[in-house]
C-alpha cells in the first residue's frame, strides 16, 4: 500500500503544525478521531479523490473517468482540490504537496472541523468507522469475482447496481424494519398448525366462553393479517437495494456485489445529508482558528484570498460552505444575544428585536448542539430566518421551460425555504418505492414515485429501468408523472412503453415504443 501509510511521511514542519493545530482544536472543545495526514502530488490526490477517498477501492471504469476529469480540470486551471478527509477511525486526511504553508494551516484546521463533525454528528453514528479496511475487503472480493467470472461480466453487473444505488432509505439505519434474516431459523416452517381461536370450555359453557360474534371477529382479524402477509412487500419498500438483495434471482457473487454497493451507498449517504452543515462547520473552525490563533501577519493577504475564494457565490449555485458558515454564525450571534425563546418570538417591534441583547452568551454551546443533532434538512428547517435570507441576498429560481433557462423566481422567504428543503430532501433525488413485487401475479416489479411536481428525466428513467430489469429479470414498471399526468413507464426486456394512467380513458392509449 503506497498511500495509506505512516505518519513518518509527514515532513517535520507539517508535523509540528499538526501538533499545534490539534492542540488549538482541542482547546476549543472539538472532539475528534486520531488524524493521519498524508501529503500527495496533485496526480495522487486526484487518484484518491476519484476513488471516493479510498485508495484500496474496487476496480471500476467510472473511477478512471472521474480521474481524467479531475486531472484535466487541474491541467486546464478550472479546478483544484485542496484537501480530502475520510470518515474513518483513525481519520485520514490528504494534503496537496504544492500548497503554500498558509494553505496547509487552513486546510489542517478545516480537517479537524470535519473530523469532529464525523465523530459527533448523529447522521454519522451508524457509519462504519473501519471503512478503510472494509473497502479493501470489498476490493479484494470484487477482484476475485472478476478473476473467476470475468472482468466484463462483473463490471457490467456493477454498472447496473450503481444505476440504482441512490434507491436506499437513508433513515433505515436508525429504524429496525425487520430482523436480519437468520438462515438457521426454521420456526416458520415448523409452526404449521394454526392456533385455535377458541378458549377451552365445557360444552354447555361454550357459547358463553366463546361467543360466536367474538369468534367471527377473531377470524376476520386473522384473515386480514393473512391478507397483509400475502402482500409483497408488506409495506411499500424504499430500500430497493435491500429488496432486490432479498428477492431478486441473483447468484451468490451477484448478491455479494450488490450488498457491497449497498453498504458503500449507506456509508456515503450521511455526507450528502449534511453537506451544508459539515462544510459550514469545518469552515467556521478554520476561520476561527486562523483569525484568532494561527495566522501570521505576512500570511494575511493569502489567507483572505483563499478563504474568500472558498466562500464565493455565483448566481444559480448555492455554495454550501458559505451558507453553512453564515448560518452557524447567525445562530451563534442569536444565542449570544438571547434572541430566541417565546418572549423574543412574541416581540413584533422591529427596532426592539434588532437591538435585542440579553447577554445570554449561549452561542458556542448552541452551535455545538446543532452540529450534533441536525442534518441539512432539519438545520435549514429550524434555523433559516427571513432576516437571514434578506441579509444573504438569497433567492429562489426556477426553470423557464420555454426559454430553457433558469431565472430568478422570488425573494420570498417561504418560497426560498421551500425550494431549499426540496433540493435537500432525499439528496434532491426523487423518492421511489417498490409497491408490488408480484405485480399482476406475474412476478413483475411495480415501483411508484412520490410526485412533487417535478418530472423525471425521462430518458434516464427508461435507461435505469433497463438496468433494474437486468437484476429482476421480469418486466419492471414505474408509476410516475409526465407533465403532471400520472403515467406508467414499463420495460419488458425488449421494449419501453409509456402509458397514461387512470382518468384518461377518453383518449386513445398513447404508446411510445422505444426499441431496446
Amino acid at each position, binding site marked *: 500500500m503506497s498511500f495509506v501509510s505512516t505518519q513518518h511521511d509527514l515532513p517535520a514542519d507539517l508535523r509540528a503544525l499538526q501538533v499545534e493545530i490539534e492542540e488549538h482544536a482541542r482547546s476549543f472543545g472539538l472532539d475528534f478521531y486520531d488524524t493521519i495526514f498524508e501529503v500527495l502530488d496533485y496526480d495522487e490526490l486526484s487518484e484518491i479523490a476519484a476513488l471516493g477517498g479510498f485508495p484500496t477501492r474496487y476496480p471500476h471504469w467510472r473511477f478512471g473517468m472521474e480521474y481524467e476529469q479531475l486531472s484535466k480540470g487541474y491541467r486546464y486551471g478550472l479546478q483544484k482540490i485542496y484537501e480530502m478527509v475520510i470518515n474513518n477511525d483513525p481519520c485520514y486526511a490528504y494534503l496537496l504537496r504544492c500548497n503554500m504553508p498558509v494553505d496547509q494551516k487552513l486546510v489542517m484546521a478545516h480537517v479537524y472541523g470535519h473530523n469532529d463533525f464525523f465523530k459527533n454528528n448523529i447522521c454519522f453514528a451508524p457509519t462504519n468507522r473501519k471503512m478503510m479496511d472494509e473497502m479493501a475487503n470489498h476490493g479484494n472480493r470484487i477482484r476475485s469475482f472478476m478473476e473467476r467470472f470475468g472482468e466484463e461480466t462483473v463490471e457490467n453487473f456493477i454498472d447496473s447496481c450503481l444505476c440504482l444505488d441512490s434507491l436506499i432509505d437513508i433513515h433505515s439505519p436508525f429504524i429496525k424494519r425487520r430482523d436480519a434474516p437468520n438462515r438457521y431459523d426454521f420456526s416458520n416452517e415448523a409452526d404449521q398448525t394454526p392456533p385455535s381461536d377458541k378458549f377451552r370450555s365445557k360444552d354447555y359453557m361454550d357459547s358463553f366462553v366463546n361467543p360466536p360474534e367474538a369468534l367471527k371477529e377473531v377470524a376476520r382479524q386473522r384473515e386480514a393479517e393473512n391478507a397483509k402477509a400475502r402482500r409483497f412487500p408488506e409495506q411499500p419498500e424504499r430500500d430497493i437495494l435491500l429488496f432486490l438483495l432479498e428477492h431478486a434471482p441473483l447468484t451468490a457473487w451477484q448478491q455479494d456485489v450488490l450488498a457491497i454497493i449497498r453498504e458503500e451507498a449507506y456509508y456515503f449517504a450521511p455526507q450528502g445529508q449534511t453537506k451544508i452543515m459539515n462544510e459550514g462547520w469545518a469552515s467556521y473552525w478554520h476561520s476561527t482558528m486562523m483569525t484568532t490563533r494561527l495566522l501570521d501577519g505576512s500570511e494575511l493577504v493569502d489567507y483572505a484570498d483563499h478563504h474568500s475564494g472558498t466562500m464565493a457565490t455565483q448566481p*444559480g*449555485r448555492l455554495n454550501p460552505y458559505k451558507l453553512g458558515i453564515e448560518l452557524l454564525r447567525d445562530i451563534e450571534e442569536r444565542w449570544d444575544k438571547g434572541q430566541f425563546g417565546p418572549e423574543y418570538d412574541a416581540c413584533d417591534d422591529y427596532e426592539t428585536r434588532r437591538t435585542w441583547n440579553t447577554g445570554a452568551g449561549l452561542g458556542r454551546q448552541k452551535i455545538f448542539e446543532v452540529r450534533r443533532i441536525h442534518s441539512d434538512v432539519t438545520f435549514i428547517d429550524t434555523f433559516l430566518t427571513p432576516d437571514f435570507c434578506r441579509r444573504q*441576498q*438569497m433567492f429562489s429560481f426556477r426553470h*423557464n421551460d420555454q426559454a430553457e*433557462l433558469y431565472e430568478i423566481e422570488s425573494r420570498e422567504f417561504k418560497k426560498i425555504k421551500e*425550494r431549499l428543503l426540496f433540493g435537500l430532501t432525499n439528496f*434532491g433525488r426523487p423518492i421511489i418505492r417498490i409497491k408490488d413485487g408480484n405485480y399482476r401475479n406475474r412476478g413483475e416489479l411495480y415501483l411508484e*414515485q412520490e410526485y412533487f411536481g417535478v*418530472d423525471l428525466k425521462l430518458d434516464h428513467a427508461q435507461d435505469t429501468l433497463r438496468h433494474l430489469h437486468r437484476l429482476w429479470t421480469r418486466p419492471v414498471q414505474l408509476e410516475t408523472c409526465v407533465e403532471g399526468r400520472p403515467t406508467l413507464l414499463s420495460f419488458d426486456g425488449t421494449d419501453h412503453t409509456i402509458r397514461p394512467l387512470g382518468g384518461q380513458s377518453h383518449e386513445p392509449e398513447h404508446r411510445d415504443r422505444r426499441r431496446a
Partner: protein
Amino acid sequence: MVRKIERDQNRFRQIVRGKIKADLKKYITHGEMIGKTGGELVSIPMPSIDLPEFRYGPKGSGGVGQGPGDVGQPIGRSGDGEEGAGQAGDSPGQHILEVELTMDELAEILGEELELPRIQPKGQANIIEEKDRYTGIRQAGPESLRHFKRTYKKALKRQIASNTYNPDDPIVIPVREDKLYRSWNPIYLPQTNAVVLYLMDVSGSMTDDQKEIVRIEAFWIDTWLRSQYDGVTTRYIIHDAGAKEVDEHTFYHTRESGGTRISSAYRLAHKIIEADHPPADWNIYVLHFSDGDNWGEDNRHCVELLRKGLLPKCNLFGYGQVESPYGSGEFIRELEDAFENEPNLALSEIRDKEGIYDSIKEFLGRGR
C-alpha cells in the same frame, strides 16, 4: 508500481473506444468532430457514457441561489443534460463528457471498424532518406554553433581542478580548449511519403451541402492516410471549365458559375505529379469529387487522361460522385463503361451524408 487508477483509466478508455466504434457511422455522418481538431487531438462529445439513474429533469425544477438580481432575471441556461443548477450543492454538475483522442487512435478505430486493410506503400519503403540532426558535440566548429552550457561547465571544471576558481569572485572565463560546439549526425529514415491530390468541381451545380460531404470525407481519408505514412502532403485543385491549384480554405469556399470541364483538372493533376511528385518516389492518391456533370465531348478526354496519364502513376484514383439536385450525374457511368476492374480505380456514388461511410470504405478498402 502500476497505479490502481491506471487500470480503471484504461478500462474507461476501452469503453470510450467501444462507444466511438459503435457510433462511428454517426460521427462520420454528422461530421461532429470536424472543426474541433486542435493539433494532434480530436475532441469527441460523448453524452451517453455516464450511468443513468432516476433523477429530476429541468421541467418545473429550480433551486436557491445567492446574490443580486431582480425576479425574472435569467441566471443560467439549462443546456441538454444539464441538471438543475444549484441543487444545494449535492451533486457535481452533469456535463457532456468530451473525450480526447489522438488522430492515430481515431484512425485505428476507423480502420478496425471499416475493416480497412493496411496500405502497402509502393516499393520505396526501402529507400533510406538521410537527414541531419544536431545531436552531437565537437571540439571545433563555427562560433554560431558554440554550446554555451557545455563550454561553461568545462571551463568551470578546469578552473576548479587547477585551483584558479575563486568563489568570492566567481568569474569563469573559457579558454580555447574549453570551447565545445554542436555538431550534426546523419539520421537514416525510411521514406514513405504520400501526396493526396483533392480535385473538386466548383461549378454552379455543386452546392454547399455537397461540399460539406466532400469535406467530411476528405477529413476521414486524410486521417487514415496520415496514420499509414510518415508524411502526407495534400494539394487541392478546383475546376469548372478550367482548373487551378488553391489552398485548403479556398478549396472548400469557392463557387463558380461556369460550366464544367473535368479534363482540365485531370490535366493539371498530371502536370503537378510530373513536376513535383515523381511516382518513383511518391505514393500518389488522387481523389476527385463532382456531381457528375460534364461537357459531353470532354468525357472522352478524361478517360484518355486517366488511362494514359493518371492511373499508371497513382496508388489510387478515387472518384466520388455526390448527388446533386442539378447535376446530371452521368460521369460515373462513363467511367464505369470505360474501365473494367482497374485495381487502382475506385468509383463511389454518395447520395447524402449517410453515404459517406460506405464511400470511405470503397476508397480505402483496397489497401493501396
